[in-house]
Structures are given as structure tokens and as C-alpha cells.
């Protein structure tokens, strides 16, 4: 017994080291499976406050480019207004429209929630974006996030007033995307090297691909509305083993300058999940 106590007192700092190392490694590797579980509420609120104060200063310097981006988006949206299209009247008898506009609400699938970006990294291999909008303002884990110019990522952590987004520039990013012109489906991921480029793999060889083609989110996604811009094809290479194309995409978003984001809520998610859960596999 005395020897044990002697041993403990002699190597106390080694024991403390091993304990602290164990604790931090546990946090680190646990994090991979349960994103942000440890850091969800209290710490997010705390660091979010500091980051928000700082981003207030920082956004000031990029107001000009940010304005240009928003103006471009406004112009694009305005061009889609009903009033911009005119056609000669060809009707010969009055028809009363039976669909009231208000009733369309029940068919709405996606709602865009605007949000300010208060934290963003591009240097790490797992990058995160922090938004000043949280559970109280309708953000939930798993929602998609876009910016005025394209896809940003997925919400992985929510506290009362802040949320953390797994950036597209994250080693674990997997998004199904489709070539807008050729129509081949593939998977977007990031190799951690250059924040300007992401990888699109598993595109079938039958697809016609050209440099500069737009890549957008697919209509199979639960989270992303179809047609959200991911990037543009920059380099094309062929995977000899699987016989598929591996493409390098230039991201549509300039990840170094992200100041506004939209969190996207899928209103039909509950029904989709319920349907999926109700299906019983024949073997069960």
C-alpha cells in the first residue's frame, strides 16, 4: 500500500498528463461521430458573442463586394417576376381562376431564412461557419445553408441564438450534385488542399462533360432545393478502375468572403421521414 502511494506521489504529474491527454483525445475522437455534441450550447453562445462583436468590424471592410453580390442576386430575382413577361391576349372568353394564391402555401416545400455569418474558417481541414441564428429562430440540425452565390454547407450544431455549419470545405462533406447540362449525378467532397476547389466524383462515363459546366444540387436531396449552384468544372480526369469521371470544381462561393447566408428549411421533411420509416423491408 505504501509503495502504491509512493508511486502515485512520485509520478503524479505523469498521471495528470495521461489523464488530460485521455480526456482531450476522447473529446477529439468522439467529436467525429457526434458533431458538436460537447460544444453545442453553452460554448457556442459564449464564443458566438465574441465572434459577433468582431465580425461587426470585419464586415465593414467588405461591404462593397457584398453589396455587389446582393445587387446581382436582386437583379436575377427581379428578372423572374411575372410583370417582366408580356404576351398578347389570346383568350376569347373570360375564365375565372379557381386557384387562390393563398392556397399555394400548402404546396410550399422550402423556406429561406436569412442569417448573418459571424465566423468562418478556410485554413483547417475541417472548416466551420458560424451563423447568428439559432434554435429560437427556427434553425435545426441537418438544414442546408446557401449564400447568395451558391451552396455553403449543412447545419451541424445549434444553440439558442447561434448555429454552426459544416462548411463545404470539410473533410466529411458529401453532397449529391448533378451536372446542369450533361445531367450526370455525382458526389461532392473536399480533399482539404485548396479552398478554391472541391472534388466531384462518381460521374458516369456516359455523361458529356466540358470545362466550365455548372454543377448544381440534385432534385433527390431532402435538404437542398434543386438547382443550387455548387461550382464550375475546372479539370476533368478519368478513374481507370471504376470507369467514372473525377472532376475538380471551382466553388461558386468565394469562401474567404462569406457574410450572408440563407438557412433552408424543408417543410415537407416530416412527411418524407414518416413515409420512409413506414416502409418495411420484406426481410424484416
Amino acid at each position: 500500500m505504501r509503495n502504491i502511494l509512493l508511486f502515485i506521489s512520485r509520478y503524479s504529474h505523469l498521471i495528470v498528463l495521461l489523464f488530460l491527454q485521455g480526456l482531450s483525445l476522447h473529446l477529439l475522437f468522439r467529436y467525429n461521430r457526434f458533431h458538436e455534441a460537447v460544444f453545442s450550447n453553452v460554448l457556442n453562445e459564449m464564443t458566438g458573442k465574441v465572434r459577433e462583436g468582431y465580425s461587426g468590424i470585419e464586415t465593414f471592410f467588405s461591404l462593397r463586394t457584398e453589396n455587389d453580390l446582393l445587387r446581382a442576386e436582386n437583379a436575377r430575382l427581379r428578372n423572374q417576376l411575372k410583370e417582366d413577361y408580356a404576351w398578347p391576349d389570346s383568350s376569347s372568353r373570360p375564365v375565372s381562376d379557381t386557384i387562390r394564391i393563398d392556397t399555394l402555401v400548402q404546396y410550399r416545400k422550402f423556406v429561406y431564412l436569412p442569417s448573418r455569418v459571424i465566423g468562418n474558417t478556410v485554413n483547417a481541414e475541417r472548416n466551420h461557419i458560424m451563423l447568428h441564428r439559432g434554435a429560437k429562430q427556427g434553425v435545426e440540425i441537418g438544414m442546408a445553408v446557401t449564400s447568395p452565390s451558391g451552396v455553403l454547407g449543412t447545419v451541424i450544431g445549434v444553440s439558442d441564438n447561434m448555429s454552426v455549419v459544416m462548411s463545404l470545405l470539410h473533410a466529411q462533406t458529401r453532397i449529391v450534385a448533378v451536372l446542369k447540362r450533361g445531367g450526370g449525378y455525382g458526389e461532392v467532397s473536399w480533399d482539404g488542399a485548396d479552398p478554391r476547389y472541391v472534388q466531384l466524383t462518381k460521374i458516369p462515363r456516359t455523361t458529356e462533360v466540358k470545362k466550365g459546366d455548372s454543377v448544381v444540387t440534385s432534385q433527390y436531396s431532402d435538404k437542398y432545393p434543386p438547382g443550387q449552384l455548387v461550382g464550375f468544372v475546372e479539370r476533368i480526369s478519368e478513374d481507370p478502375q471504376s470507369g467514372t469521371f473525377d472532376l475538380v470544381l471551382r466553388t461558386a462561393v468565394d469562401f474567404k468572403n462569406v457574410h450572408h447566408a440563407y438557412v433552408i428549411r424543408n417543410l415537407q421533411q416530416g412527411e418524407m421521414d414518416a413515409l420512409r420509416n413506414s416502409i418495411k423491408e420484406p426481410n424484416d
Partner: protein
Amino acid sequence: MTDFLKHILRCCLFIFVQVFLLNEIPPLHRYVTPHLYYLFILWLPFRTSRIALLLIAFFYGLMLDAFLHTPGLHAAACTLIAFIRPFIISVLLPKEVGESGYPEPSYKSMGLIPYGTYILLLTLFHHFYLTLLEWLQFGGFLVFIGKVLASTGVSLLLVLITELVFSRKSNYRTNMS
């Protein structure tokens, strides 16, 4: 008490610089991630006990992790260098530590070459361990070696600049004061 306040202030300043300056600047190269924050641990007083050193380093690293969303990563690297620090000091400084009169490691208190070796070794250990932990989850071997060396080089440069810009006025303590 003023010493305590000084270290708290220093801690906040290092975290601020690391989070809002060094992590915000566009990456120079994929291998280069500049770090400066660990200098806080290297600058802690000689007299800090080993256990206290470990605990301070752990919570300091965890604080940085909270900002960078990497729970445990920097905390692990910090506790490692906090553990190695006393060994390196005792090897480099044959005199009984604390008798030298200066409160904390600096090129004045240790001499230029021992202090340089001290910084170099701990920087290397820090980056080696930090990159190893990242590498275990992700990346290739060449990336690992390149990252350790490149990041160590850039961080050493940052430490040198910090030493030149902020000359710490560490007074020679005598019994008179």
C-alpha cells in the same frame, strides 16, 4: 496579483490573435498553418508547479478549441508541451531554476542559445503532435511531414517577430524589491 492579471491579459491576447488574425488570413500554402498561441505556455513563470502547468495548459487549449470547433485537439498538444517543458528547462539550465532571478523564460534569463533551443524544441513537439492528431483522421504521410516542417518554420518566424516587437520587461528580482 499584478502578475496574475498580466498572465490573464496575455492569455486573452494570444487567443484573440490566434483566432481572429492567424486563422483568418488566407492560407499561404496547404502545409502552412501559423501558430503563435502556444507561446503563452512557454512564457509561464519558472516557479509554476508541474501539475499547475498541465492544468493551465489543458484549459488554455480547450479555450482555443471552443473558438475553433476542434474539441481536444489544441488541448492535447498544449498539455504535451506543458509536460515536456520542465525537462527541457532543467537540461538547458543547469542552475537551480528560480535562483536565476528572472521570473519567466526569455532570452535574457536563459541566454540566447538555450532559449532558442527551448523554443525550437517545444515548437517542434507542439506541431508534431498537433499534426499527428489531425493526420490520424485525415491526410497522407508526405502532407504530414511537410506540414510539421512548414508550420514549425512559420511559427518560429512569428515567435521571433513577437520577441522583437514585445520586449518583455522582466525585471531582475532581488531581495530588495
